[in-house]
């Protein structure tokens, strides 16, 4: 039975900004081709691109006070840039889905929990 995964695409802004236009177009073309393929195969649940990390707000409650800071959590160079939710037959297939867009980005594949369960 198919399993739900999220494909988390982490991107390094500096790497992207340094890419020549034609190369950037080629990689974006791969994104679009994958999304089309996943739509047609009935594996895509939803796809989201995230706005630039500079617009991020990070929220914490510390000592009872809500603290909001500008910018992403942590100092990592790679920031979450896109999220695909897919449903496919195996982890091998999920890796196959994520791999083509991992040329410059880092792709993390996480299985989703579900509410179904069997009593033991």
């Amino acid at each position: 039975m198919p399993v739900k995964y999220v494909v988390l695409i982490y991107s390094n802004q500096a790497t992207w900004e340094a890419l020549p236009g034609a190369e950037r177009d080629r990689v974006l073309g791969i994104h679009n081709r994958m999304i089309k393929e996943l739509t047609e195969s009935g594996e895509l649940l939803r796809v989201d691109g995230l706005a630039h990390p500079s617009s991020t707000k990070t929220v914490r409650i510390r000592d009872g006070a809500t603290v909001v800071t500008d910018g992403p959590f942590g100092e990592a160079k790679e920031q979450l840039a896109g999220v695909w939710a897919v449903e496919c037959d195996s982890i091998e297939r999920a890796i196959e889905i994520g791999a083509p867009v991992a040329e410059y980005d880092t792709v993390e594949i996480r299985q989703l929990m579900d509410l179904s369960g069997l009593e033991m």
Partner: protein
Amino acid sequence: VTSPQPIEDLLHELAPQVLGALTRRNGRFDACEDAVQEALLAAAVQWPDQGIPENPRGWLITVAGRRLTDELRAETARRRREDTATSLAPLEDLRAPAADLDQPSDQDDTLTLLFLCCHPALSPASQIALTLRAVGGLTTIQIATAFLVPEATMAQRISRAKQSIRTAGAKFSLPPENERAERLRVVLHVLYLIFNEGYTATSGPNLQRTELTGEAIRLARDLRRLLPDDGEVAGLLALMLLTDARRPARSRPDGSLVPLAEQDRGRWHAESIREGVAIVTETLSRSRLGPYQLQAAIAAVHDEAARAEDTDWPQIVALYEMLARIAPNPMVTLNQAVAVAMVHGPQAGLDLLATLDADERMAGHHRLHAVRAHLQEMAGDVAAARASYRTAARGTTSLPEQRYLEGRAARLTGGSDSA
């Protein structure tokens, strides 16, 4: 105004008949299936206001026939535009249904449809979706909601499934005699998967999901009517009834799981148990033994115990031994280990579990760790049990199972979660 439930039931019942009649005449299963779906949607909108027509089956065939004609005309026009040189056969007008279309067929089309929708060329997910739509008469959005995916995703899957059937060259006819047994095995598995999707859903907000058990039971009943002498068809129906009977007690209103031994048996559905026991008793006495019958027999032994401590565990051990002989499978061994532990003590169960450590299919599976944890707890090995519960909790992708397993681990530390 007619109330919606009888209309929905009627539509579900008529869906495969209408689709069968149309496909038998036209041959184009994919186009007919779309047309019938549209006719069902039209009926669901119109009938509650205008009342059920005198001949509902004829109404659906006429409406679906019209849609089909429109679609095929449009397709012909498209093709003509693309290739004007090709001469096309004149299109048969289906606007007025012929007399033979209006009669139920001698051989029930439902069986043919089940075999077609459960075609081996399709993935289980596609088989399930197509079966629910074409045989069950469910709408795409109902199926999508039950499986927690967007409607567009489910629509695409159904359309791909029909495309695969076409590519495989499958015809609207019963499979040849020599393939029948194997193909029936696939159909039974698909119904079993539909049932499980509904059964394992905890009492959350998604009611459509739990309704899948009812849908699977209905389809299994249909199949038994068509194949009354098949022991495994009867066995599967009995297994569903005997399992579903425990559903009211298997989870709490907050969705947390209640293990079998702790369930309030007064909440079990007595009528389903009576029916399931009657079916399995009758079929075991006259059919060739099969895995569904044995699993149903095991479920029956559990269901017949008024209290958990009244369970006839030696009988269950004997049934699991038979099951392990005719259908060896690591999941069977897992359940067998629990039964063995209840009869011969936890160490005997743990010894049996140890045989699974080398099994690649089970290596690291959370249920193996969960069962081991229970048996270790039974044996009084608290530290090992707690570690196994924790390992199992990390391995499951089910939130209710995780919560249950973490709860068991925490209980072994006297509630304080120090590890």
